[in-house]
């Protein structure tokens, strides 16, 4: 296995110095497309975005590979407003390029379907009615008109953005031929808050508040990914105690988030008792978080350089007892679920996401791992306290809802074991002093409950943020949702499909 630097050199690209663990490659606009295609073939395309500069724009593509804990950043300066699209060669780049076009007005020439991803046009969104598209971009309606889905008895059913129950706002256009789910087009962006844009010009610790509120259920993962990017860019040391505490809290977040996902899956199959049991576990995990940090979703405990305050000793004592109980109960529930034929039958072969397709889109998290994409940034790019911890990563090849649920069940067990390992470790209050930040640019990452979240932070000489790019897991995984829904399912499978993907809308919309 070769490292990222060797891969780049073999392709005739020369690396320049960058933040530790990162390989930075500069190329020209003309070379960019082929370089991305070549690197994406040899590794994973982890992100693709644009940055406004004094003299135009800069395109950045980020790559990783198994066997190298670092990252490769490919950058090209763009003088004009157009460039040749990467998507025809690398399909996983499609939504990234649509976002670049939408936010920066840079048009990727040759993109097969240049639709908006989050912005619905000049007018406020009115569901079920026509909207105008942004200049140079098609609208969803235009796509429906140019590529309509036709057949006997085919009808369309809009759902959202206001949906049943307390759920996030998103719009789904179902195309059905009676029972069959022919196509589901998710239309997101209703919740777009321009979080990344709001951070520009702020001090890093002020922007941390925004990173923690990218999504409530992945507060801590996005918080540490952002904090690590700032610490790496600004050359701030983090103590071992703080690193361990961060790993502990990140696993607590995985627990409450996975319990919630499992409760939703159980509920979608009509198992209300199992759903109630998982929700009880979720509530206990949230109370555990509150006992450790004072906040149920772990907000406010993180600081640039470590933690803002000590992890409560009382909470830690309580946790050592809770972990044992949680393990016993979640094991019992797992056995009951696996032994319930109606549950297993409902999930098996539902919404299959083929392994090749998952690889082509560089999927992350439990959704990717259930389709054979064996990646986990805790293992592949160790951070926080993870280098000294023992854990397994499960990847399955079936790619159906059952595989996704089994990955979640397995990860609950691993998270409990990680919490137990960390409770044995030494915990001295890892309170951060206000660090002084140097100018720089670096990546930060973490394995959120939904998968790898990758942040890039550029700091200027006064320690303020000049660019923050957040690429949470939902930004990758929503891309394949429509495809998985269209793999021979019924309309009634839809709740199961949505629950098994457990994709966050807030993370995508940002």
């Amino acid at each position, binding site marked *: 296995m070769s490292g990222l630097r060797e891969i780049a050199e073999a392709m005739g690209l020369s690396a320049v110095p960058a933040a530790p663990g990162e390989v930075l490659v500069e190329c020209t606009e003309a070379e960019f497309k082929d370089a991305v295609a070549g690197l994406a073939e040899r590794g994973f395309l982890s992100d693709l975005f644009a940055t406004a500069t004094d003299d135009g724009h800069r395109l950045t593509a980020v790559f990783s590979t198994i066997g190298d804990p670092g990252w490769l950043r490919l950058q090209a300066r763009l003088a004009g407003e157009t460039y040749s699209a990467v998507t025809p060669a690398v399909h996983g780049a499609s939504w990234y390029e649509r976002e670049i076009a939408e936010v920066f007005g840079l048009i990727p020439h040759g993109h097969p379907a240049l639709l908006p991803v989050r912005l619905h046009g000049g007018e406020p969104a009115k569901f079920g009615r026509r909207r105008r598209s942004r200049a140079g971009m098609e609208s969803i309606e235009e796509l429906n008109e140019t590529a309509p889905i036709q057949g006997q008895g085919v009808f369309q059913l809009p759902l959202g953005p206001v949906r049943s129950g307390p759920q996030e706002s998103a719009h789904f256009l179902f195309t059905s031929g009676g029972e069959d789910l022919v196509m589901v087009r998710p239309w997101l962006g209703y919740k777009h808050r321009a979080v990344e844009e709001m951070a520009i010009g702020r001090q890093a610790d002020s922007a941390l508040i925004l990173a923690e*509120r990218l999504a409530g259920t992945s507060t801590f993962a996005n918080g540490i990914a952002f904090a690590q990017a700032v610490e790496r860019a600004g050359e701030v040391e983090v103590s071992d105690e703080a690193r361990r505490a961060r790993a502990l809290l990140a696993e607590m977040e995985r627990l409450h988030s996975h319990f919630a996902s499992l409760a939703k899956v159980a509920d979608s199959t009509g198992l209300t008792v199992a759903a109630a049991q998982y929700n009880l576990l979720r509530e206990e995990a949230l109370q555990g978080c509150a006992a450790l940090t004072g906040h149920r979703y772990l907000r406010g405990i993180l600081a640039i350089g470590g933690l803002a305050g000590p992890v409560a000793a009382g909470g830690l004592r309580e946790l050592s007892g809770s972990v044992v109980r949680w393990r016993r109960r979640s094991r019992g529930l797992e056995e009951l679920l696996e032994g319930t034929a109606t549950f297993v039958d409902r999930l098996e072969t539902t919404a299959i996401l083929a392994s090749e397709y998952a690889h082509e889109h560089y999927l992350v998290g439990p959704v990717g791992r259930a389709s054979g994409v064996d990646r986990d940034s805790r293992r592949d790019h160790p951070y926080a306290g993870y280098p000294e911890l023992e854990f397994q990563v499960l990847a399955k090849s079936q790619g159906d809802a059952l595989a996704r649920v089994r990955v979640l069940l397995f990860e609950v067990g691993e998270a409990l074991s990680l919490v137990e390992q960390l409770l044995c470790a030494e915990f001295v209050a890892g309170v951060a002093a206000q660090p002084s930040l140097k100018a720089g640019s670096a990546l930060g990452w973490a394995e959120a409950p939904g998968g790898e979240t990758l942040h890039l932070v550029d700091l200027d000489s006064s320690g303020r943020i000049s660019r923050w790019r957040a690429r949470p897991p939902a930004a990758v995984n929503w891309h394949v949702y429509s495809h998985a829904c269209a793999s021979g399912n019924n309309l009634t499978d839809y709740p199961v499909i949505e629950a098994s993907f457990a994709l966050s809308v807030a993370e995508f919309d940002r």
Partner: protein
Amino acid sequence: MVQLDASLLTPELAIAAAGVCPTDAITVNGDRTEGSLLFEAGQCVMCARCVRAAPDAFHLVSEPEVAVRSPASLRTRVGWKGGKADRSGRSADLETGDAPQPAEEERRLVDELHVRAMRIFNRSLHIRHVDAGSCNGCEAELQMLATPSYDLARLGLFFTPTPRHADCLVVTGIVTQQMEAALVETYEAMPNPKLVVAAGVCALGGGCFAGSPRRTRPLDRILPVDVYVPGCPPTPLALLHGLLLATGRAEERYRASGTGR
């Protein structure tokens, strides 16, 4: 929730707390010798930085009954002159032209009338929720209400999928450009009489997204808000308190300025 203990606030602590507040929930006007502090709990994202910077004056209160009917209860101002704090806590409201507090008797009558009017919803309130642009923290806590730990149905509260059956609209998140139309249409589809509960600081003052370029207007300029539930996110018990307060089945307790426990 964070609460300010006005009796222990010094100009130094006020300036320290305002310096660390990331959402301008705590702002200071003037300087050490003469000035005032304004604390808006409806903007507080519970980051607890003020509690760490000025632990004497700001503390976290764990009481769940934090929902209020008037945003004035979430706002407090403390002034000082010659380096000495004005202990009264909310005296400066009048100075700055904020709406004066209704007289005690008037307030009592308004409350009583409200309770009577809300009796129509007593023991059966159907709730429709709209996420107008949240981080999904508020949704996660709203979902907890339907779980055995909180079980809102035992209180006669129910989530309903359709606004046509709803008595109460719970709104979370800043109102984004792309959600305002859907929010207003949902409200208009609800039959009268109807209640609106703003849940979470994004729906109150905007929290850390108050300045978002995608935010249209504060929620209470779009819809008539009956109850405000602060928190980032509000806990399930705070949400329950908000719903019970809306129907006149609970009392308003929280004040941005208090002596804590």
